């Protein structure tokens, strides 16, 4: 959607909210509301609560709804009928002033802001103060500038809307006004996120040519607020005699290894191999804390950036509950997309559909000259003084390896795929070391381990550690039972998860991003691209035979 369309859409919604809180519902508005179809899945839980409540009220409303709503409006916003005079008085000054009264400092402030913008606020009754909720909403509906809208929203409306809405919910008797409160609260929060995103888009999209020295200065400046991670050499050597590349903190651009695939993925930065979850005493359990309040910047190739969406699906989406430990690190991360100079040895990202990525704060091309494209408004000023240039990042469009993803359609195919003789060939070949899971950017599975500090107390902690579906203990229960008993069965489980059932569950994309790390890692030279191709072929043959 274009920015202008988004702006119009959100301004229309402000006008709608303005009307809800401006005066009582009249016949015309009630008619219009009844004619509306309310979204049943608007994507925001709070707003959905609002829609559902209003829709429920309208569905059951009868002849006296107008009177009922008018009475509730008077009760909620004017304190009518309340012995203590309690109400959700719709003025910012009441909530933000030194005393809960109208016409205090916040009122002066908003008047000044309206005047600065010279906007004509229409249909404002003289008895209504300028910091009335409906006037602040009307002002939002008129602001064209993203920065101004965001400043007024976060500096005024959002400062008191939460408490105002809580009061509405407290004093309202109808689901209609309770719903209106939820709608207001949900929308304002959503709009802030939206404006922040639009702000970023507006400021950005400038490209620079950057020298190594300039780049190092940028990293130094970023380091005040961020930890900057990139693939870099570790000083340790792998089986093939090559120095191992992992994601680690960098201070200089010269540390970034950009011309080969890292041995480990970027996931270890925001989903560490081991993390403490809970501290225990005999009678208490306490969530661990993050000791570092810095943000995280990860410089990574498209496969690693596309992989994070897969982990989000599991840790934030699955089961409809977010995982605190994942979210608290993940939410700090901004990605810098590192252009692939070429397709590396075992990559098959094109077949996996993850060679391209758009979801990054900056894009980077490293080489004899460095180029950077800045998308995120937060980093707009970072490269001031660098030479502006034309640079659009390129993506790999061809790999040395191509993979035919299996076509598993329907229950019969799943049965066929699971029962293939093909999998048994891995009983001998695979030694169940789990190395492939460890280097995979999308493997999310973990175990928990409890640790006691010393034998004389029960104080201790629960940690979570990456697990691996290729280990023969992965499904082992306390009773000694195992759901899958062979290396071949584990291979089948992994391959189906990566190329079929993750997509079946989340509906978006296959889990595997085609980074090829598992192939490079395997001590038995099992090539994952070949494994998938072999599976697809065996499945096709079995389908034909049927």
């Amino acid at each position: 959607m274009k920015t202008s369309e988004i702006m119009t859409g959100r301004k229309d919604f402000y006008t709608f909210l303005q009307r809800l809180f401006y005066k009582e519902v009249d016949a015309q508005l009630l008619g219009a509301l009844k004619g509306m179809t309310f979204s049943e899945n608007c994507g925001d839980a709070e707003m959905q609560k609002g829609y559902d409540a209003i829709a429920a009220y309208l569905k059951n409303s009868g002849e006296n709804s107008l009177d009922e709503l008018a009475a509730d409006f008077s009760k909620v916003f004017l304190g009518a009928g309340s012995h203590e005079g309690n109400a959700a008085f719709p003025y910012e000054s009441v909530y933000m002033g030194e005393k809960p009264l109208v016409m205090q400092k916040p009122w002066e402030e908003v008047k000044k802001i309206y005047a600065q913008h010279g906007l004509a606020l229409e249909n404002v009754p003289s008895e209504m103060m300028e910091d009335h909720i409906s006037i602040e909403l009307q002002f939002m509906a008129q602001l064209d500038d993203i920065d101004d809208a965001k400043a007024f929203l976060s500096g005024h409306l959002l400062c008191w809307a939460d408490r105002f809405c809580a009061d509405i919910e407290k004093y309202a008797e109808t689901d209609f006004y309770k719903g209106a409160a939820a709608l207001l609260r949900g929308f304002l929060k959503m709009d802030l996120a939206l404006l922040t995103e639009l702000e970023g888009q507006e400021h950005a999209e400038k490209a620079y040519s950057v020298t190594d020295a300039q780049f190092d200065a940028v990293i130094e400046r970023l380091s005040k607020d961020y930890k900057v991670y990139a693939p870099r050499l570790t000083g340790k050597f792998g089986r093939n005699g090559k120095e191992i590349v992992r994601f680690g903190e960098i201070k200089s651009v010269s540390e970034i290894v950009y011309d080969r695939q890292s041995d480990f993925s970027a996931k270890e930065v925001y989903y560490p191999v081991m993390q403490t979850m809970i501290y225990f005493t005999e009678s208490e359990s306490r969530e661990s804390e993050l000791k570092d309040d810095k943000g995280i910047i990860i410089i990574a190739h498209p496969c690693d950036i596309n992989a994070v969406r897969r982990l989000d699906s599991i840790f934030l989406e699955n089961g409809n509950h977010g995982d605190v430990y994942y979210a608290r690190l993940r939410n700090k991360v901004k990605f810098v997309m590192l252009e692939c100079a070429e397709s590396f040895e075992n990559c098959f990202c094109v077949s996996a559909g993850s060679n391209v990525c758009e979801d990054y704060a900056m894009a980077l091309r490293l080489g004899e000259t460095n180029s950077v494209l800045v998308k995120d408004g937060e980093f707009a000023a970072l490269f001031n003084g660098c030479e502006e240039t034309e640079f659009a990042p390129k993506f790999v469009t061809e790999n040395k390896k191509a993979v035919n993803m299996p076509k598993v359609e329907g229950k019969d195919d799943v049965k066929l795929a699971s029962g293939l003789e093909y999998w048994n060939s891995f009983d001998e070949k695979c030694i169940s070391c789990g190395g492939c899971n460890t280097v995979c950017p999308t493997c999310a599975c973990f175990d928990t381990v409890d640790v006691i500090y010393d034998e004389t107390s029960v104080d201790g902690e629960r940690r979570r550690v990456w697990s691996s579906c290729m280990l023969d203990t992965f499904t082992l229960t306390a009773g000694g039972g195992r759901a899958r008993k062979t290396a071949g069965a584990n291979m089948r489980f992994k391959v189906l998860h990566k190329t079929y059932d993750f997509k079946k569950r989340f509906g978006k994309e296959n889990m595997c991003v085609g980074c090829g790390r598992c192939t490079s890692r395997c001590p038995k030279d099992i090539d994952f691209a070949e494994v998938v191709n072999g599976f697809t072929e065996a499945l096709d043959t079995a389908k034909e035979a049927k």
Partner: protein
Amino acid sequence: MENIMLPKPHKILRVLKETQAEYTFRVECSDESKHGQFYMLSIPKIGEAPISVSGRGEGYVEFTIRKVGRLTDGMFGLAAGDNLFMRGPYGNSFPVESFEGKPLIVISGGTGMCPVRTTLNYFYDNPEKCPEVRFMAGFKAPDAVLFTEELEKFKDRFNTQYCLDTGEMEGFKSGFVTQCISDVPFADYEDYNVVIVGPPAMMHIAAQECVKCGAAEEKIWVSFERKMSCAVGKCGHCKINETYVCLEGPVFNYTKAKELLD
């Protein structure tokens, strides 16, 4: 964001020895749980595992735990008054409301009796809600028989058949519990439900036997036991194809269960 992995301490009210290897822990808890749901139980310094609710009452839930594995060994050091850390309840449940008014056949193997025990007691306490309950329980050997008093009690109101794989004991037939299935007059029932819980091989054989004796697959319900490290769809251990046992299970209709290929 609420931390769904944080367990809370609950006081142990009573520890009851069922067999040499199995103990029932009664724990203070006033959560609402449904028939067949489970909790993640943990003992600090040992670990966490999914355990079915085997009983419940006013202000408490019960868990019957077999002395196997690291977790359950640690459990047996605990006594009344100690704290047990737990979180839950998790998972779906047996559709007990839809069982009402129709004959119910319950087939359990060993500790598989735990997840169906609250269902059995519900129909024992409310006999008007179920015209006929057939309960078949199998155990490995005489020293593995669980809930002895309850097995006696159930005889009053249910059609019961108890079996021992090996060994002899009064009131128990010799052989696998699955041999009793052929006695069920499926053809005479207009509608009915079958619940099967036990070790994987036993559930598989029992379900096949039921179908062979004329039971319809969609009337059979099973409950899965899987390793779990989170119970909330993150750790990946209980996944079968695109199904997470902790989220969509542990109770499955057999039409779905037979498609879940490990």
